[in-house]
């Protein structure tokens, strides 16, 4: 297949408490994906759907299993325990195999929490151990507010390539990124696996509410060393058109174009896969 025409087929996981699958699939289509299928988790768990035939797996926002045991914990447990085919690999093992054969994985909000809790971030497919977590916000509350995000230009992350500071909404109660120890934090930072940081006036910030949750290193996102697994607390699918921005009625179009900044993340992924 010639470069630039490789297919981009997106598997958007849904059900059991996901909330953002429709607008997330919509964003992928706006970004030019060929297919963005919303796939119910029970169909996958029962072996009636699989990651075969897809290039992207998306874990969208929501409250899987109600987050009743802590954000995404019950769902992480589900992915480790469930074998879609008797005697076959678990759902988690299927994701690992999917990444090894070149697939991209995007986790947004609850989906990011899931990637962290199954250990795919920041360790990646080769070392899926939970060494970070997303704990309760330092103020102990769920909050919906827009934040500024500063990309790390040196990050291997496929999704954030070439971006400059931009805004997205956060909507979570457990988004505080914490590392198990300093060694893990250092290694993660040195390898540029924190692709986005909460920022104020162009610099990373630990000030509430600009850093809404008190994350270590002001991290809003993580990727693995390949840059192909990416998770973030903010919602890029919630800013794909101008009228979703909180100040669209006052900003001119040169500062705030028709296309929302969040769509760039999806476009980056589509372009990377097209060129593959």
């Amino acid at each position, binding site marked *: 297949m010639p470069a630039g025409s490789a297919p981009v087929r997106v598997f958007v996981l*849904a*059900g*059991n*408490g996901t*909330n*953002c699958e*429709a*607008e997330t699939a*919509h964003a992928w289509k706006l970004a030019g994906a060929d297919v963005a299928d919303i796939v*119910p988790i*029970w169909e996958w768990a*029962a072996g009636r759907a699989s990651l075969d035939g897809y290039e992207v797996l998306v874990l969208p*926002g*929501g*409250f899987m*299993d*109600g987050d*009743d*045991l*802590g954000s995404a*914990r*019950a769902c992480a*447990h*589900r992915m*480790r*325990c469930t074998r879609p085919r008797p005697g076959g690999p678990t759902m988690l093992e299927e994701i690992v195999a999917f990444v090894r054969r070149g697939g991209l994985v995007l986790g947004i909000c609850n989906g990011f929490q899931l990637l962290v809790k199954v250990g795919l971030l920041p360790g990646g497919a080769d070392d899926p151990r*939970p060494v970070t*977590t997303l*704990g*309760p*916000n*330092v*103020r*102990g*509350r*769920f*909050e*919906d*507010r827009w934040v500024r995000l500063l990309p790390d230009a040196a990050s291997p992350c496929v999704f954030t390539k070439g971006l400059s500071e931009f805004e997205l*909404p956060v*909507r979570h109660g457990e988004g505080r990124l*914490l*590392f*198990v120890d300093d060694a893990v934090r250092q290694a993660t930072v040195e390898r540029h696996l924190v692709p986005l940081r909460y920022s*104020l006036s162009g610099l990373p910030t630990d*000030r*509430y*509410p*600009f850093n809404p949750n008190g994350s270590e290193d002001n991290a809003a996102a993580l990727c693995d060393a390949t840059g192909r697994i990416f998770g973030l607390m903010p*919602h890029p*699918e*919630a800013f*794909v058109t*101008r*009228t*979703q921005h*909180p*100040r669209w*009625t*006052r900003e001119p179009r040169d500062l705030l174009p028709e296309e929302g900044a969040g769509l760039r993340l999806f476009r980056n992924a589509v372009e990377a896969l097209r060129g593959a």
Partner: protein
Amino acid sequence: MSGVADEATAGKVHRIEVGARVGREDAAGRRLCRRLRDDLGLRVDEIRLVDVYTIAADLRPGTLDAFAAGALADPVLQEFAREQRLPGAFDWAAEVNLRPGVTDNVGRTAAEALALQLGRPLRDGERVSYARQYRFAHGPARPEDRRRLVEGLLCNVLIEAYRLWEGGEGWFAPHVPRVLLDRKPQVRTWRLDLPDDELLQTSRDNVWALSLAELRAIQAYFERPATRAVRAGDRLPPEPTDVEMECLAQTWSEHCKHKIFSARVRYRGPDGAEREVDSLFRTYVRGTTETVRTAKGPDDPCISVFDDNAGVVRFLPEHHLVFKVETHNSPSALDPYGGALTGIVGVNRDPFGTGMGARLFCNTDVFCFAPPDTAGELPPRLLHPRRVMEGVREGVEHGGNKSGIPTVNGSVVFHPRYLGKPLVYCGTGGILPAEVGGRPAHLKYHAAGDAIVMVGGRIGKDGIHGATFSSEELHEGSPATAVQIGDPITQKRMTDFLLVARDRGLYSALTDDGAGGLSSSIGEMARTTNGADVDLTHAPLKYAGLDPWEIFLSEAQERMTVAVPPARLDAFLELAARMGVLATTVGRFTDDGLLRVRHDGRVVAALHMDFLHEGLPRMDLRAAWAAPAPFPVRPAPPADLGATLEQLLRRWNVCSKHYFVRQYDHEVQGGSVVKPLCGVRATGPSDAAVVRPVLDSPRAVAVAHGIAPKFADLDARSMAASAIDEAIRNAVSVGADPATLVGLDNFCWPDPIPSPRNADGEHKLAQLVRACETLHELCVAHGVPLISGKDSMKNDYHHGETRISIPPTLLFTALGQLPDAARAVTMDLKRPGESVYVVGRTLEELGGSEYFGLLGEAGGVPPDVRPEEQARLYRKLHAAILEGLVSSCHDCSDGGLGVALAEAAFAGDMGLEVDLRPLAADGVERDDLLLFSESNGRFVVSVRLGSEARFETRLAGLPCRLVGRTRPDGRLRVIGLEGAVVLDQDVRDLETAWRTPLDLNGEEVEVRDACR
């Protein structure tokens, strides 16, 4: 809960404690310390929270450790201990668990996780239950203070139980709350041939809330030969069974049949003339809609009104808009969290159960509480307003956020008399396909022979008598079983399933199991086919031992009743099983004119459908206006108008509600266009929400509301008119086309039926009549059809000599449409040098205003409306907005023009100079009265540079005056009637004053410091 035992299970019981690792902070614990200090004035140095899972199952230590490590404890933040105390230093501890039978969401999720790990379903008797443990460092030492602490904030003893550990040896033993009903289900019969007082006492004892006339009508029905013949055939005794009495009581409850709104009312109004109103509902609600629809002719937007669980109107060719607003006041008074959570997930099921089922796209919430600084001893059984406020807030947070439905619009309203009952209004909008399977989706298609299938959660004693209980005043003995805990995740799974089943054409109708449970949903659906044959034997129960009447009446949450044609039944049940949703056939629809209920092989109820729904005798009521006519009063003018404005901005009903807004997801689903907060720093209070429910269409819905209980005591007309006009203004402000508006009316009233304990009942009913007349007048004048509504008529508290009745309250919700979302307008001033207009007429209408409230002045003339002129004004203003002439538009309501100017200025971080002299003001001759009158029908509008002439032409002949200009200096300056500057304030200071009183998340200080 009578008949409910609370015992440890036989066999193995394990206990796992999970808590933060040493050195990791506990954010929830810190937040609790703050609340203890702020709400109860108790100092505690540290609280640490521990999650306790009690597992009744015979499992090996290794299995349990793997379960704890894999599913329960976060490996980075937490550690766990099995069968022993999690280490830690603390002085005393409290452990709180749900009472037996109360929905345990965490326990249920943990049980599912355990089953996944074991690779098998849990067996009978195996279960996981959850408890919260609080560990205290220092804090009160006296036992009564400790109990006050726990019961005041941590444990609602109505639905929860707690144990204390106060040091020394020993520790909490494993404890499994379990319902043990060691009894066989029974059916008893009731004799109705009793003397009046005994009969009424029986009704009260059983929470039937039936009147004597109603009881005698039932007695007469059971004596009819036709009734007797049916009963003989079904081997039923001649006397009614408890299933029948309970079913009639709930079907005939005020909550379900709206008896007051249907009554014949003899009304004497303020003018002294007497006349009869034959049903408030038919005359003023349905009557309004019929008049407006006829006048609109081909532009009538209504598709289905008053026929189903929610109103349906036109939106796009392929999509209809569905909306419903409900209240959940009484349960929220008893258990604010559970009551409000159930309120929001309950109203979700109304649009969801409309027609063939709608996808839900937004929630609204309006709360009425007593002020948070309410002081003094509270009457028995009442919770402090702060606790009510936080519980309600959190219940709606969990219900809305977890369901993935954005909360886009709301209010928090304070009045001292909401101490008697808080009001919790929850609304939900949905999108219904115009057609499903080639036929209109706003109708239902079930027929005799279709199976009755119950879908969703299991049945327990929860919520029994909710309908009849909410038809009573709150008293000390109000039943705890009337409270339920909602379970958003079970409901989410159910609605996901039903939407798939809808699109596959697997059912013919569905409806919500709300008040009255199965008896109500089946009773309603059976009207279409004229009968149903129900068998409760295999209905899924939470625990054994329920009587048939309890199964039939239970209001256990997260259930829908679905009609499934026999040919689709297997496919329907198979899909449910695949999606992990409980679905059980509980009967079939018939056409023999009877609602028949069976249990365990015998008939336990047989009621004629026509008697069940039409047999209720109508009430005859008297209404007599007994309030003096308001007259103008003029307190002395203040020395400093700037300081007065700041004080007004700090008032509970004016100040920023960002603390609530921030904790509700208002953007999920991606349709957000105008958010609750707008402007440079997102500090401005938007007048209404604008949402695009269909992502590939620019067409948007404006969701607005108005509520004005503060005018109710002076004149119910002002209260109703101000609510309706404010809702319409708010919708017009954000750009909705007034020609597209539809309305929803939600009345919450104090009991309007006189009794020795309710001496002014006739006046309360007269207030209701007057509010209804006003509703009719305004909706007709503005061309707004009512598409749905609800009333809640017993919002009183009674104990001994204490009676607290809420102020009569109408919430009016207005929905408008914008063909193009990009035409929406927000309330923040946009750029310097723009002309600012005040649109609308200012009168001396300060009775009930925030200004008079600040001055402690109880009198005065409350605001009225001039609907003909105002309707014309709104149409012209909309034309100007549509033309793109308007850069900002803000409604004037609480706090009047002064507050509206301040809000528009600080939201835009913009200076503003305004001259009061050109105002269209009829005889108001004082600066303070002009600034703080709360006359309806007014807006502050800024106009784009160069568009002034066209704007003025558009509004020619209407009260619209150029009053000033925006400036880059960040000051609000007002020039008074004498031509001098009478107010000159920094807009950032005004913003701080407005944002500080309810800044419970501490956001204001941080933002202010960072932005300076």
